[in-house]
């Protein structure tokens, strides 16, 4: 196992966090353990830690995602980092300054870390070539969202006590889901068994080479799982004929009360948010005690604090 105290420059999480695949089991566990300690500290009256005083964290958001931005902002501020929010409106078509030019600006500002959310898959990888600071992928296109996977793993571990050997079903629009990609990679690294469930149109070509099982039949999978995670399904997918109608989707893949009853007693229900209530998840399921949706938000701050601390804590 990696022992950071003995060799601070070996193992663990270094450089950037672009993909859940950047983390081996030791590094991922270190993030989760660190997050657990930080979560304990956040219960006290003085929430701020001096750890990253004098460091600058830039939130570079090309997509509106208030929840993710606020989560990263809170995490950075609780570690006393200086936070600069840099929101870039508009898309490729109306592109003003290029990502590269923005990167050079951030570089000149001396950003120690850049948290980037971008509609284009791989944008954080490009950015990482242009800045010296650490790049944290806060969601890129239909690629990955590694801190979401970390907070999901954290939530599972704190609810169920372990990750190794857990059976996790991830249900819905896997094709377009960065959450599904990062979760599949990270949970596999941490020893959980992942089953991706959805209509065949929404499972990527080549998914058979992923370290997961797949199924088209949610009802068959439910009795065997410890965790079921519903993915957000965008209604525009209907127009592209990925499935015929919202009603049919909900009937075949929505988590409703009847499906909840098929789960084992201890199993939990997760959703990365924001939810389409009545589509992939029924309101009474979202609000049930088995749902971890509210804790997921709180855990997000602790996990992101851990990531920022481990990336920046030792960086000269």
């Amino acid at each position, binding site marked *: 196992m990696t022992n950071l105290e003995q060799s601070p420059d070996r193992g663990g999480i270094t450089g950037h966090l672009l993909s859940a695949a950047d983390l081996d089991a030791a590094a991922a566990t270190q993030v989760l353990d660190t997050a657990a300690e930080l979560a304990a500290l956040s219960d006290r009256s003085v929430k701020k830690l001096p750890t990253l005083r004098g460091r600058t964290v830039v939130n570079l958001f090309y997509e509106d995602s208030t929840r993710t931005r606020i989560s990263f902002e809170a995490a950075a501020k609780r570690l006393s980092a200086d936070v600069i929010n840099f929101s870039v409106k508009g898309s*490729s078509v109306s*592109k003003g300054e*290029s*990502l*590269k030019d923005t990167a050079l600006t951030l570089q000149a500002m001396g950003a120690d870390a850049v948290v980037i959310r*971008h509609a*284009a*898959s*791989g*944008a954080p*990888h*490009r950015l990482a070539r242009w800045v010296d600071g650490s790049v944290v992928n806060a969601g*890129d*296109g*239909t*690629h*990955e969202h590694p801190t979401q996977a970390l907070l999901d793993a954290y939530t599972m571990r704190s609810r169920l006590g372990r990750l190794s050997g857990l059976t996790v079903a991830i249900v819905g629009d896997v*094709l377009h889901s*960065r959450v599904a*990609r990062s979760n599949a990679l990270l949970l596999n690294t941490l020893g959980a068994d992942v089953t991706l469930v959805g209509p065949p149109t929404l499972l*990527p*070509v*080549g*998914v058979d*080479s*992923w370290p997961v099982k797949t199924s088209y039949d949610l009802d068959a999978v439910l009795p065997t799982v410890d965790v079921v995670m519903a993915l957000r399904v965008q209604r525009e997918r209907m127009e592209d004929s990925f499935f015929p109608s919202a009603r049919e989707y909900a009937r075949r893949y929505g988590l409703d009360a009847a499906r909840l009853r098929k789960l084992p007693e201890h199993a939990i229900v997760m959703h990365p948010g924001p939810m389409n209530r009545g589509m992939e998840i029924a309101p009474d399921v979202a609000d049930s005690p088995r749902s971890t949706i509210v804790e997921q938000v709180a855990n997000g701050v602790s996990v992101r604090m851990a990531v920022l601390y481990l990336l920046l804590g030792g960086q000269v």
Partner: protein
Amino acid sequence: MTTYLIKGASIVGAEPTDLLIRDGVVAAVGRDAAAPGAEVIDADGLIALPGLVDLHTHLREPGREDAETVMSGSRAAALGGYTAVCAMANTDPVADTAGVVEQVWRLGQAAGLVDVRPVGAVTVGLAGERLAELGAMATSAAAVRIFSDDGHCVSDPRLMRRALEYVKAFDGVIAQHAEEPRLTVGAQLHEGELSGRLGLAGWPAVAEEAIIARDALLAGHVGSRLHICHVSTAGSVEIIRGAKRAGIRITAEVTPHHLLLTDARAESYDPVFKVNPPLRTDTDVAALRAGLAEGVIDAVATDHAPHAVEDKECEWQYARPGMLGLETALSIVMSTKSLSWDGIAERMSRVPARIAGLDGHGRDPAPGVPANLTLVDPAATWVVEPAELASLSRNTPYAGMELPGRVMATFLAGRPTVLDGKATK
């Protein structure tokens, strides 16, 4: 006009001999070839090839002179051993009228480094809705023979049928960019394991194969010639093989990059590897090499596609597709070791010249043949340095690679366009 005596060249791999070049033609071949006052070129160890012919070049002029001009692209072509290039129609304005194709042709004449043969658009504005004035382009000074909406597929089957039929009147050929657009909406990368993992919308092989199959059947039905641009999949090779067996008049080209690179290059998200059709898999590369050697694929064409820095130094999905190719094509083909010298002459010169209807090109150096030829040092290697390329753009996927073969001299109609490995203008 200077007379040149090329000494010791091996014509397409044969025993070394001497060539006398005078008044635009090869005047004599043999050890006794000589002329008083001839400038002697020591070609000891060099291979003489018929000047290469590119069926698929994007010169960007008019419209994107920041990325390439007819002049800069011609220089790149000459340095790559080419004596003729077919300039694609997707310029701005589109080459869909006699006026535009003549302009491009005249710019090529003025540059004087390579025969620039404009390709005419099949449909007005490449919009795929109604035929451009194909006959006017054919009878213009540019004498257009190849028509293509390259960059776009002529996807409407009825329109494609009409185009195939119509160009028979002037022995034209439709060069199809085979891509069923409904299957490639937003497509970024070969659809496969990697596109799924990288979260990039997939460009499925079937989108190419379905169009090739359809158009082969259409060409057979109306008895027309069809040319397939940049074949990229193993399945396409099979379909073309079958169509040829069935007697359909179909020809096909493959790019050097599809003969060498695979989609694995996309892992870095560096858009220098973004191209349309996309880089495919090892299986496809192997099938393309075999198809080329066998002759199922008739020609190597570069799909030389210069792009300005800002169109490549960006996010993958916002980047324009395309790669430079003219200056590296011969070396890349040599590096695949799939063709003999005769095979290279066949696939990179003779056959493409035939497809394009260029009588003065694609003929092995022999007495009386127009002196369009290139001299290659097969033993030399070079390292691709983007900034040193003659193209105005830098988007080569081979940066830093050490490649075999170096073009030492190129002659266009008896005049050197490249000497000592350097362009003459």
